[in-house]
């Protein structure tokens, strides 16, 4: 309970510092917390009714912190910070690939969607369904081809299975002070 309160206090402080609109923060956090709410509800229905509050509250706080982080820091900065705290290169590279290629996949899907709208005229629903399934199949095939090309591009630049990186981010004194402050709050909440 104390930890939850301190997390709540800490979360509020960060929300104030981030200068994000409260409505924006709550709406996004609520949407992203829906799966956790469902799990909390099912757990409370079966055995522990009090769990609903705790699971929902904690997951909302965690998701909220994520929303603040994503909304205030650029993705490249997040990657640099993850590197600076020695998160394994494989994990960071996968995260980078997902970020980089999600845009490309969206672009390809949108171009297919436009083609579909132009070509799938008339009311033949069966034909429309077939066209849509074909588009999905082609999208998967293109993804596969692209992944092969990317892997080849990596091999040609000396990729040998490891993901080294240059550490560009340097922690400032303010970062260490903030970390110290957070630790004090969390430790205090544990013993008070």
């Amino acid at each position, binding site marked *: 309970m104390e930890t939850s309160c301190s997390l709540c206090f800490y979360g509020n402080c960060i929300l104030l510092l981030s200068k994000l609109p409260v409505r924006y923060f709550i709406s996004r956090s609520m949407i992203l917390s829906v799966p956790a709410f469902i799990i909390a509800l099912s757990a409370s229905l079966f055995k522990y009714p009090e769990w609903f509050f705790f699971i929902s509250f904690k997951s909302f706080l965690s998701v909220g912190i994520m929303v603040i982080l994503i909304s205030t820091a650029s*993705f*490249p900065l997040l*990657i640099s910070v993850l590197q600076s705290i020695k998160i394994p290169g494989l994990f960071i590279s996968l995260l*980078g*690939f997902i*970020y*980089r*290629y999600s*845009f*490309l996949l969206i672009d390809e899907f949108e171009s297919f969607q436009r083609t579909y709208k132009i070509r799938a005229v008339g009311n033949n629903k069966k034909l429309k369904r077939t066209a849509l399934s074909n588009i999905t199949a082609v999208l998967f095939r293109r993804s596969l081809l*692209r992944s092969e*090309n*990317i892997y*080849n*591009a*990596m*091999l*040609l*630049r*000396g*990729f*040998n299975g490891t993901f*080294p*990186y*240059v*550490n*560009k981010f340097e922690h400032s004194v303010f970062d260490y002070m903030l970390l110290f402050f957070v630790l004090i709050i969390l430790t205090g909440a544990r013993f008070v």
Partner: protein
Amino acid sequence: MSDTIIKYENVTFGYSENHTALKNISLTINKNEKIAVIGGNGAGKSTLLLLLCGILKGKGEIEISGLPLIKENLIALRKKMGLLFQDPDDQLFCPTVFEDIAFGPLNLELPDEEIKRRVKESLLQVGLPGFEDRSPHHLSYGEMKRISLATLFAMKPEILALDEPTSNLDPKTRRKILEILKNYSGTLIITTHDLEAVLELSNRAILLYKGEIVKDGKTVEIISDENLMNKCDLEIPLSIKLNKL
């Protein structure tokens, strides 16, 4: 001592049993030579480059700097060459330009300071200084193409193999790419349909048609031969047409 840096000997490759993309190709390329591989669609130009980089494996032998292109030598040979893909989205796979350019030097296990220096130098070389923190998906197609070139320059390769480096570019960006390539001092192999660019960049051209070398010789002589160009699904460039008038 021989100046040969690349040697293809009786190289044959097919994507399937019924379709042979390259037939019995034999050619040598000298150190610091600038050559253009020209031909219509499906002539086998890109396949020739993919074989050179060891991405595809065909029959026959390929040698680079005296080393045969076999599995054991692949890593050493790939350090000597850079391949520019036709689509820059295949080449730029990192979240930032810095990481993309640094990817090659990092795999060469260079020290951090040297990597940062190479990233800066390569960006300067392609005329895009200060692009380190940009995301590739926020760049224009021309900028992505130039950054793709920078990823190769950062490796300091002896051989640059470029697949359609000027395709889909506006005239200004195309000019910039041509200027960058003119300043490159190593061995350059380009495959393209852009025959005006070929005239500017290379002294030697290799004309491919249906997977076979039809002619290997001086660029101007090959490109000016109207019958040969038409037979191989190409057209003589406008500048030569105007000169003939």
